[in-house]
């Protein structure tokens, strides 16, 4: 009985798809799937394969299997790789401990409609509409040896503060530049989430005599869970894939080592080798693994 019923159901369901439906569905599912596979999965898998080869990137028939040689080279022979990892980790810590919390704080303050909040909102949002590359160009104008700041300090080129060349400043200068945009971005995301929170939650907390901090920590923050996940994922991705600003400032050859630039250095131009592909795979794993781990844990908690 039950089987026939099920059969009936499926057959009925099947019948409801007209040829036109199938075509539409096929197009709506097939086309994006095709594009996704062709533009995301194929290059990604090809990069992973190529990271195990020697190749100059020109003739397909010149590809030579190299096993783990590229990875060995990176891990054991290239001190610059570890310098880059260090910079990316500092970047992540900075974003995680300073830039992102600052963005959240600003969002909270603006949501509380402190005096002049409209002005702050626009001021902090402004950099978000600019790409990192444009931000790099703007700050480069300000901070280079013949730039605005050194001009203001009255320093000739020879005595100019070496904002981008000196290890004492360069990483922090770059982080401040990147935060300038990141803070506004996080603020915007968080503000959107805060606006969606039911005002009665706050009222209830206030009636129960909760302080501002308690309200945020115990009521608002947990209610913001979906936004929190997005903010954390974005913070991780933005810090690990950082590239464009550093590339604009240093021109993609040398300068401050970060993983994104190492990928570019080794895969673009005449010096192309599949060491660049190996860097790309490392970068991919570094950004995907913590995110998957984090999301898995979050979803498990949700199920519970």
């Amino acid at each position, binding site marked *: 009985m039950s089987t026939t019923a099920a059969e009936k159901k499926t057959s009925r369901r099947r019948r409801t798809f007209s040829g036109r439906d199938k075509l539409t569905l096929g197009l709506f599912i097939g086309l994006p799937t095709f594009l996704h596979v062709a533009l995301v999965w194929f290059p990604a898998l090809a990069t992973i394969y190529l990271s195990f080869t020697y190749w100059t990137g020109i003739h397909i028939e010149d590809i030579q299997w190299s096993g783990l040689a590229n990875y060995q080279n990176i891990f054991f022979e290239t001190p610059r790789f570890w310098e880059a990892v260090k910079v990316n980790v500092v970047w992540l810590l900075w974003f995680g401990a300073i830039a992102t919390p600052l963005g959240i704080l600003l969002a909270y303050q603006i949501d509380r409609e402190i005096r002049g909040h409209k002005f702050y909102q626009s001021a902090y949002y402004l950099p978000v509409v600019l790409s990192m590359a444009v931000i790099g160009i703007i700050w480069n104008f300000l901070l280079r*040896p013949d730039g605005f700041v050194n001009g203001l300090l009255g320093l000739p080129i020879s005595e*100019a503060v070496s904002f981008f060349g000196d290890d004492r400043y360069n990483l922090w200068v770059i982080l401040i530049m990147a935060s300038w945009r990141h803070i506004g971005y996080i603020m915007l995301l968080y503000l959107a989430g805060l606006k969606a929170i039911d005002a009665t939650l706050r009222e209830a907390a206030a009636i129960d005599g909760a302080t501002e901090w308690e309200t945020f920590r115990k009521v608002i923050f947990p209610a913001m869970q979906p936004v929190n996940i997005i903010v954390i994922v974005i913070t991780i991705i933005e810090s690990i894939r950082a590239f464009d600003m550093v590339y604009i400032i240093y021109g993609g050859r040398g300068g401050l080592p970060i993983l994104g630039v190492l990928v570019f250095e080794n895969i673009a131009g005449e*010096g192309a080798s599949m*060491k660049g592909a190996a860097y790309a795979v490392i970068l991919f794993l570094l950004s995907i693994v913590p995110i998957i781990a984090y999301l898995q844990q979050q979803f498990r908690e949700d199920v519970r």
Partner: protein
Amino acid sequence: MLNKVTNHEVDRRLLLKGAAAGGLGIAGATMLAGCAGGGTGPISFGARTVDESPTIQLKGLVDAYVAKTGNEVTYNATESNAFQNNLSQYLQGTPDDCFQWMAGYRMQFFASQDLLVDISDVWDEIGDQYNESYKIASTGLDGKQYFVPQSWYPWGLHFRKSMMAEIGMNPEDIYNWDDFMAALEELKGQGLIGLASADKGGWEAMGTFDILNARINGYQFHVDLLGGREKWTDDRVKDVFAHWEKLLPYMNTNVLDLEWDGAMQLLLQRQAGFFFNGSWFGGNFLEQSQEDYDDLMIVPFPEINPDHGRDTVDAPIDGFCVAKNGSNNDGGKDLIKFAGDMEGVQAMLDTGIPMTSANNGQDRSSYDAFQTQQLAVMNEAKYITQFLDRDTRPDFAGPIVGPAFQGWFKDPTSVDSMLESLQSQWDALPAL
């Protein structure tokens, strides 16, 4: 490398390829015959500069070609770093028919990847206007020519005559290392930077390494080192850095924050006594004023080891290639033939932008004082090298040597570990 050239093994596939190429050749010949008399169709020209002076110069060349042949030429310009970074992809995609490039290893690499057009027949026509050394620099590993030279320039110590006169220093008298150190000390005493330096781009300092290595250890060692036949961990290389370290106190402190043109500004603005660089920037001085250009002069880098004197100079050759994937190879060839011929060279000279052409037809008596001195610097040298990133593997020079030298500037005491790392990174490179 030699094996590749002399190995005439014939197998079936090669024969088939040859037959196919032959067929194409015949088709090409008929097409050529069809074209003869008329124009060659639209040609596109790719310049690897967006700077003012070279653009005027190249446009002068293109305009003269158009005026002469009536062929249509599109001029596409790309900023030079971006052009270099994209070259592989550019040549495999839809490149311009002919483009500006450099001689030596950097041309040979792309020629051996079959991305450049063999232009031996162009050399048959214009070859007698060039010295043999230029033909060698234009030749690929297979013995065919792929490159037409445009200009050369030596790397040397540049200075401003008026500044030196004020200080009472005669750079012509700086013959050896001790003279040079004394001069730098004197400049420092005057509150000036002795030697303007830059390395933000990761390549500028390679010129200083080249010359110190050649002066201290000689041409042969330098070439062998870059070819991987000598070791970076050799004490002789350490000696190079020991000398270099002695120059650091006389340099501007923000070497890593300046690109070559930033260091040039130091000379232009009279903040520095000397600037070690390729003479190509004469055009930038001329953009400022004729007076600044006339004030510019060059002397060879001083002798360090009397065994080698001043017998080597970095003198890169720039020029043109034809891209195989271009849509109009014949047009590209025709244009670079014109560029290599004295007629094209004259068109570039007529723009008034200073150029030392590789062509023998350029009247050396028409050289200005600065150019005459550049020639003297060249003539004093017995051996000519291109430049570190043109004389060694590109996957070593760009991503490895560049950052290593930058790291050394940050911490000169790290020389031993830096050199060990350079050697182990060289050893880890795949065989070519």
